């Protein structure tokens, strides 16, 4: 059994939980907004993400250096949306369906996320199709900070479990 992550003890890390409530490929309606949950980004979560990918950039990790740098304070790496995607996704959402396979992504970056930001996600399936007997969904996602500014926006394709 998987323990809840120390970085976020309330996060449900068992992806089988509520699996029966999630929409299958047949049930996903392109264009329909997904329900999402706001997430407070912390320095600890950023530091753990940096550790997992070997990031050592002082702009993400060293408060004094970051303060003297171009952003006037600590920021998160652009790729932090990888964490935000799951942090903002409720347990009954199809993005968590076990066996969901990532088939490619494209992301555009506007301004950096910062520790302390309250992040919100606007997301939906935009399209779905069948190719070589595989069931694809195209999803689009936009992350905002507490001031309503766009942090980043992206589109991904997943192959849905059959």
């Amino acid at each position, binding site marked *: 059994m*998987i323990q809840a*992550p*120390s*970085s*976020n003890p309330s*996060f449900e*890390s*068992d*992806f*089988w939980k509520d699996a029966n409530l999630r929409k299958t490929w047949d049930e996903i309606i392109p264009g329909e907004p997904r329900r999402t949950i706001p997430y407070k980004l912390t320095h600890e*979560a950023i530091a*753990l*993400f940096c*550790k*997992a*990918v*070997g*990031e050592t*950039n002082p*702009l993400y990790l060293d408060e004094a250096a970051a303060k003297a740098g*171009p952003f006037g304070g600590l920021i998160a*790496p*652009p*790729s932090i949306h*990888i*964490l935000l*995607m*799951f*942090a903002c996704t409720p347990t009954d959402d199809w993005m*968590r369906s*076990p*066996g*969901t*396979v*990532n*088939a*490619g*992504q*494209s*992301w*555009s*970056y506007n301004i950096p996320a910062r520790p302390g930001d309250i992040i919100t996600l606007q997301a939906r399936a935009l399209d779905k199709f069948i190719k*070589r*007997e*595989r*069931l694809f969904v195209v999803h689009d996602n936009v992350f905002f900070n507490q001031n309503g500014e766009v942090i980043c926006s992206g589109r991904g394709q997943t*192959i849905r*479990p*059959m």
Partner: protein
Amino acid sequence: MTVTFDHLKIGDVIDGPVFSVSRESIRLFCDASLDYNPLHLDDEYMKGSFGKTNFGGIIMHSMNNFALITRMLTDWAQPSGAIHRRLETRWLKPVKPGDTIEPTGVIKSKQVTAKSRWALIDVIIHNQNGEHVAIGEAMVEFPVATKVG
């Protein structure tokens, strides 16, 4: 080392970090990304097939590739005051514990727009056997106000 838009040449190469993939690195990425899909955790589950695909064991998150390419691009761009603006990727091959992966970038073209300057970069990740596991394209902005030198 810093680069300037004017001195950037088509074909210039950006070297990325070497990354060793292990069960531990994959588990750490689960905790860091909150992506606990059993694809990355559950050996029993991974004996099964997914549609037409059988991976034969747990696999690394493909977004670990994405984060590694991002690390390469920001490490290259930030010291010069350039900004990583876009990354598009496709996955070609699953990455497994024991693999070593390394991203590389190659400057494909330069573009000046009404208000800014852009470098378009082809990115590739290869594994220890020289196989390509991910490919993509990136856009890095060199704002006009950036100091030269």
